């Protein structure tokens, strides 16, 4: 795969570069050199010890460096049925921005939303001020690869003081008869004192093999507020890697919430840099996995300045032979006094074959800090079980109530009510074995046999 990508990179320079600025092309070259040196990350690296990409890269993937989609009726492609959720909706199909009207819109309040490829053409100066400044291609091999090939994705710019009322919904769809290798790149810039909510949905419309390596850069400038929700409901043959780089400035607030309902292979990395005081950075996650699904969440938070707060809460329920990895790293630098950092990972395993590797790391060099971490792997409390049965609940209902309660600690953190209700409902359905990956799309499923996953609560 590395050889193919190298060959492609050298041969297709013109197509890859497209309209990118000289600065972006320099970033590209730098990142590509890094990738050549390091290659795909292997399990010899500490952060990849429990997640092996090798088998996923054996497929002969199709890589499209030219956008073949234009003027697609996105509503026909996919309709989100989160009732009452009024969003500004954007679709990315197989890594390319697809649109019905215009590739890039400028709202009356100055907010720019649309295709990154188009933004590189129309707003090169604006992009040059940001792109690559949050992403770290030296330490993250997959981000280096993404940067080398960056072409299209979502671009959002919220000007100073603008609160974008409607959440922006990004629907990321993979729909291809052949195995595809995709590398969308997203950039979100929240200017001073601005506010924005992004709901990011990852779906596959088929059960075909795909590999998505996404990078997103989030710039939260002074006093801005960014909420980022990710709903991952993918087919069993899909591999989804997301790396989100967050750069927070003074008094900014960033909140992320990743709900992984299904997916063959999922790895989410969030890398946060708190560059000034007064930052609040909250990161929540919930993963419900079964069969041979693998989900890996890596959070790195760098308290590079004093007086900021970060919080991580990730919870998971695993059935069958599912595997989960959690690594939460908090670095509190010597001068970063009055830091508050909390981290917690809780798991419930339903079988002996399900496995969790959880690693909290706190690296603290300052002395006036408030930090905590915790990780649990366990089963449901038998005392609570008896208590509920003694009130007349059958074992199944008791388990379900407790499971839903376990999951809802994360779901409750969703502040958009319609989305919270819908996610709560999806989690309930997922735990009752009633959610298939096709549940959210009007097409239902292109595949003849819809996938039904089932977390079997009776195994508890």
């Amino acid at each position, binding site marked *: 795969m590395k050889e193919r990508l190298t060959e492609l990179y050298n041969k297709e320079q013109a197509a890859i570069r497209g309209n990118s600025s000289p600065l972006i092309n320099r970033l590209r070259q730098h990142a590509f050199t890094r990738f050549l040196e390091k290659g795909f990350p292997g399990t010899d690296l500490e952060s990849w010890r429990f997640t092996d990409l090798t088998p996923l890269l054996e497929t002969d993937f199709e890589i499209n460096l030219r956008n073949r989609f234009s003027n697609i009726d996105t509503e026909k492609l996919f309709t989100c049925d989160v009732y009452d959720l009024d969003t500004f909706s954007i679709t990315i199909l197989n890594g390319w921005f697809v649109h019905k009207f215009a590739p890039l819109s400028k709202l009356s309040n100055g907010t720019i939303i649309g295709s990154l490829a188009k933004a590189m053409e129309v707003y090169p100066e604006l992009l040059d001020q940001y792109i690559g400044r949050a992403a770290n291609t030296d330490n993250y091999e997959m981000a280096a690869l993404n940067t080398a090939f960056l072409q299209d994705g979502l671009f959002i710019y919220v000007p100073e003081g603008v609160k974008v009322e409607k959440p922006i919904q990004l629907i990321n769809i993979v729909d291809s008869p052949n195995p595809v290798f995709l590398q969308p790149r997203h950039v979100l810039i929240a200017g001073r004192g601005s506010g924005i909510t992004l709901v990011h949905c990852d779906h596959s419309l088929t059960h075909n093999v795909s590999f998505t390596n996404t990078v997103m850069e989030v710039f939260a400038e002074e006093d801005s507020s960014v909420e980022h929700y990710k709903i991952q409901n993918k087919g069993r043959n899909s591999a989804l890697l997301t790396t989100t780089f967050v750069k927070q400035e003074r008094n900014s607030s960033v909140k992320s919430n990743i709900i992984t309902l299904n997916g063959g292979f999922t790895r989410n990395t969030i890398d946060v840099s708190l560059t000034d005081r007064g930052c609040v950075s909250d990161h929540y996650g919930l993963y419900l996995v079964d069969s041979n699904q693998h989900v890996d969440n890596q959070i790195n938070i760098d308290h590079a300045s004093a007086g900021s707060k970060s919080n991580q809460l990730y919870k998971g329920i695993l059935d069958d032979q599912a595997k989960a990895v959690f690594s939460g790293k908090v670095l509190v630098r010597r001068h970063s006094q009055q830091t508050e950092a909390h981290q917690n990972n809780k798991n419930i395993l339903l079988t002996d074959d399900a496995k969790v590797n959880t690693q909290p790391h706190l690296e603290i060099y300052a002395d006036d800090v408030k930090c905590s971490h915790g990780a649990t792997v366990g089963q449901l*409390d038998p*005392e*609570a079980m*008896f*208590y*509920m*049965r*003694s*009130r*007349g*609940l*059958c*074992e199944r*209902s008791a388990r379900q*109530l*407790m499971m*839903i*309660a*376990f999951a*809802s*600690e994360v779901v409750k953190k969703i502040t958009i009510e319609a989305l919270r209700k819908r996610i709560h409902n999806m989690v309930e359905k997922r735990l009752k074995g009633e959610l298939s990956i096709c549940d959210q799309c009007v097409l239902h499923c292109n595949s003849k046999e819809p996938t039904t996953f089932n977390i079997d609560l009776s195994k508890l």
Partner: protein
Amino acid sequence: MLSIRNLSVSIEGKPIIKRLNLEVKEGEVHAIMGPNGSGKSTLASVIAGRDRFDVDEGEVEYMGQNLLEMPAETRAREGIFLGFQYPVEIPGVSIANFMRTAINEKRKYLGLNPLSGAEFIKLMEEKKKVVDIQSKLTNRSVNEGFSGGEKKKNEIFQLALLEPRLAILDETDSGLDIDALKVVAKGVNKLKRKDNATVVITHYQRLLDYIIPDFVHVLYDGRIIKSGGKELAQELEEKGYDWVKKALASNQEVK
């Protein structure tokens, strides 16, 4: 209603209840008193269906059925209620959701239609008055972060909602101040009917000033060694458990 005959129970081979007999009829209030470690809570747990105990011999008949063969949830649906000495915290599960599920599963078992949301809320409002419970409490997670008094009130609130035929209250008075005790006792008395029965398990006579028992039994070393009327509780309070213990040592049957 409830006949316990010759019941022996052990845990990990250690005998706890030894050939115990007890008869509870409709409309009666029984108090079981005894020192710590006498087997009071074990007896309550066995009736409610906790499965960590081994029943070595004897039988328990409830409403003409073999109680020991029923799983815990069936016992509850058949009208048995255990007020826990240490109510369990269930994070994330609201009392309202918990109780609605419990009531509707019981109704389903009895062949009744489930209560609608509105009907349930109405029922809940009505029963809140029984124990003076604050409105907010029912939206909170079951027992999570509750004070001792709130936990016990919550038990009585659940009792009121489930309207059992046989309520067993295991040390419901422990950890309560006198005001909370009065509220709890008042709740129990309000729920008393001709066709239901209550078994109050307690260490102290104090609760029995407010819940007047028809019968008092002294449980000691896994056996009921003395039974009497409500005056027995008073006597125990004055003379202490040593009185029965000494009497027992000199004569197997306390006169």
